[in-house]
């Protein structure tokens, strides 16, 4: 064996030293998702609309100078003009204020319902996913039975039961009715993800390196489930808004003078019958815009989050 002498070594040149360096910034998961989402024009339109509608729902009721409950009998059924931007209803209430006030409730109901579905779904699905096969099987059978009950039928039934005649349905009951069965898809999704990721090779690798269950759950399973869950939440919001609108339309919505987009459309239907089409157009358009925005954003997110579509 030859002896190592100083002459055998030489200083690496600058070029050699940088050969292994990663020059481009590495893109982390979420910035990458955002980058791909930005390329989806339709999804960006949706996102912009959601932001605009949310801002309007917050400030809209304040800028016209009228309140949502103030009745003005000298200005009944006024067509849209410079004074009343969306016109007034049969009680002389300013429809611009009422429409944005209604959007506030519709969005609130959508977001609250999604948040509750999210919480229950993750807990139930997560527990089923990590439980023994027997417990899991029982939990999923229960979920299946609940899920096969038509969603809107339950919502309608619950609102009938928990509100007395003519008094309208309270926000609490509406949310309760909506979340009582609607958490199931989220639970099924989470359970499926947990079961799949538990068996994934990187979980196994982590386990063989000595990680405990909690670590694997925190570091591997939860971050990887977040994408599909986010998509599901984005699609739950329009579903809840739609269900609430239908409820309001069937006369089971919030009590007047409060309004949601559904109850406004219901009131507007009466107006339309006597030729006052403008009373239904604005709430109807707004519901459609909200549904459109959340749906295209959800679709865009799904595409952006799917690593298989990564180019």
């Amino acid at each position, binding site marked *: 064996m030859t002896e190592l002498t100083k002459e055998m070594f030489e200083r690496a040149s600058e070029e050699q030293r940088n050969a292994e360096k990663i020059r481009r910034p590495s893109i982390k998961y979420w910035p990458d998702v955002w980058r791909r989402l930005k390329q989806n024009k339709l999804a960006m339109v949706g996102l912009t609309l959601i932001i605009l509608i949310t801002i309007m729902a917050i400030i809209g009721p304040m800028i016209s100078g009228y309140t949502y409950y103030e009745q003005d009998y000298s200005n009944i059924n006024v067509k849209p003009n410079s004074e009343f931007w969306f016109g007034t209803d049969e009680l002389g209430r300013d429809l611009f204020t009422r429409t944005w006030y209604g959007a506030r409730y519709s969005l609130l109901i959508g977001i609250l319902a999604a948040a509750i579905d999210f919480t229950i779904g993750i807990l139930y699905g997560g527990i089923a996913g990590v439980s023994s096969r027997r417990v899991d099987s029982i939990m999923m*059978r229960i979920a*299946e*039975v609940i899920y*096969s*009950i*038509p*969603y*809107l*039928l339950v919502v*309608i*039934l*619950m609102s*009938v*039961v928990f509100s*007395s*005649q003519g008094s309208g349905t309270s926000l609490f009951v509406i949310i309760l009715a909506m979340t009582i069965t609607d958490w199931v898809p989220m639970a099924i999704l989470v359970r499926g993800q947990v079961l799949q990721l538990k068996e994934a090779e990187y979980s196994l690798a982590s386990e063989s390196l000595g990680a405990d269950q909690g670590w694997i759950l925190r570091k591997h399973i939860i971050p990887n489930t977040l994408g599909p869950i986010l998509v599901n939440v984005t699609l739950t919001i329009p579903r809840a808004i*739609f269900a609430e*609108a*239908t409820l309001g*339309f*069937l*006369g*089971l919505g919030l009590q007047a003078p409060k309004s949601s987009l559904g109850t406004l*459309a219901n009131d*507007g*239907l009466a107006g*339309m019958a006597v030729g006052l*089409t403008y009373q*239904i157009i604005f709430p*109807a358009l707004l*519901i*459609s*815009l909200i*549904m*459109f925005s959340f*749906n*295209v954003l959800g679709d865009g997110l799904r595409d952006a989050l799917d690593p298989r579509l990564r180019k």
Partner: protein
Amino acid sequence: MKKYLLKRFVMSIITLWAIVTITFFLMHAIPGNPFAKEGKMPPVVYENLQKKYGLDKPLYQQYLIYLGNLIRGDFGDSMKSRVETVNDMIERGFPVSARLGAQALVFALVFGPALGAMAALYQNKIPDYISMIVAIIGISVPSFVMGTFLIQFVAKNIGFFPIGGWGEFKHTILPSFALGLMPLATMARLMRSSMLEVLNQDYIKTAKSKGLTKFAVIMKHAVRNAILPVVSVLGITISNLLVGSFVIEKIFGIPGLGMFFVKSIGNRDYTLIMGTTVFYALILILMLLLVDITYMLVDPRIRLTEEGH
């Protein structure tokens, strides 16, 4: 396969029982008595009413009687209508609703997958854009908005379409359209994405290289495989149609079961609400069972794995 069918059947029965039970106890959990709105009545009349609807018995007995009646197909009396029983109303309303629902379903099933398939075949060309626009409208415009707009802008301008009512075929066109548009859009979207996936498969290349005509490749190889996801959402589609009919019947003034249901909600006719809910659940569960069986018949993979076990 038999074992699977049996399992599905048992599950359906359990689901139905769960719905009946939940509905029954929910309806009886409502505070106050159902005749409160009828004004003051002599105690004798009140007692007779209680007796007539069996409300004087303990709750569990009422429940057992209700279950027994249901098994015999008796949905009970209406609390508000003195002449018609719930069965009479179902008999009168259901054929109307079923026709409306069936027409909407056929409309969605004929045009939805076709539109989706066209979109996939002409990706990023005009048919694709048309289908995308239809899909977006169908998904974002709720059926009650679509219904009112159809009345306002189509029926009022084109004399051919009546603005409401029921009777002839022309009465059914606009409601079926409004009701069927959302499922049509969903199916078109599903069909498009599954068709795109199928078109990239190797067996399509094989079929093409065998020298089959384009038409044969599309019809025999692509569509038949791509339609499976569409079949799998049929159950939820039927469920949506059923609930959607409440709204559509209200707008167009169609004397279907949905209208009875909405009315029964309005005047708190508890027995009618209960009866129609259970009836809806029954229909829906039957449909879901049917869809499952259909899916099993069209997708040999399910049949084979079930038999393989």
